[in-house]
């Protein structure tokens, strides 16, 4: 019975590369990892958006309409739905003049209880200390 904690740090904007989306899909995969492990062993994933990475969180992304692909917005909602913790750096949002009104904060329409936490970078640093392994995207 052990837990391995992973910290996913997204530092780049969406769509230039698919990596921000892969960060979220891999984090979501923490839900099905038990099939490979012994009873009671788990892997947990937390995701933090920092720097230009906070641009992944903008609302109303029309990626499906224009390019027929899912948006990073929809992936953030999926992450919340499976109870992945999602952090967004407060200072970086402020730097871009963005507020909680501009970004995805919940996935209520899918029945998710989890919401996005806008936190100071210091708390993200604490999360990085706390996890067993870091994955920077």
């Amino acid at each position, binding site marked *: 019975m052990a837990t391995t904690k992973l910290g996913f740090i997204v530092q780049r*904007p*969406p*769509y*230039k590369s698919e990596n921000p989306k892969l960060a979220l899909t891999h984090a979501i995969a923490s839900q099905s990892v038990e099939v490979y492990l012994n009873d009671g062993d788990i892997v947990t994933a937390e995701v933090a958006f920092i720097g*230009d990475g906070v*641009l992944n969180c*903008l*609302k*109303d*992304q*029309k*990626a499906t*309409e*224009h*390019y027929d692909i899912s*948006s990073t*917005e929809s992936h953030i909602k999926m992450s919340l739905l499976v109870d992945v913790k999602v952090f967004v750096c407060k200072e970086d949002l402020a*730097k*871009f*003049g963005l507020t909680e009104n501009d970004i995805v904060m919940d996935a209520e329409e899918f029945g998710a209880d989890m919401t996005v936490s806008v936190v100071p970078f210091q708390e993200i640093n604490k999360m990085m200390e706390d996890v067993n392994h870091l994955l920077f995207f």
Partner: protein
Amino acid sequence: MKLAVFVSDFRNTVDTLDRLKPEKLGVILVGNGVYHAVIKENGAPSPVLKTSADFYALAEDLETRGINTANVKNNVKVISYGDIVDLIFNDYEKTAWL
């Protein structure tokens, strides 16, 4: 030379735009380049917009990223793919994708 320059990145890793001195310069913001049209950092607009040029931003790429085209800066014209075709055939002679 009448040159249409495409900027597709938010963080430029090249400084070429500042060095080009064509007779007529158009800057077409596409892909993640569209962030230059709207995102301020610490209150300041993107330095890309300081270039002496005509600015265009692709509507599809703004909206894909969750940016309302109404929020784009005044000196940037929001355009479509069809408009890009017309621009490069009618208003410019050469193109450069930075």
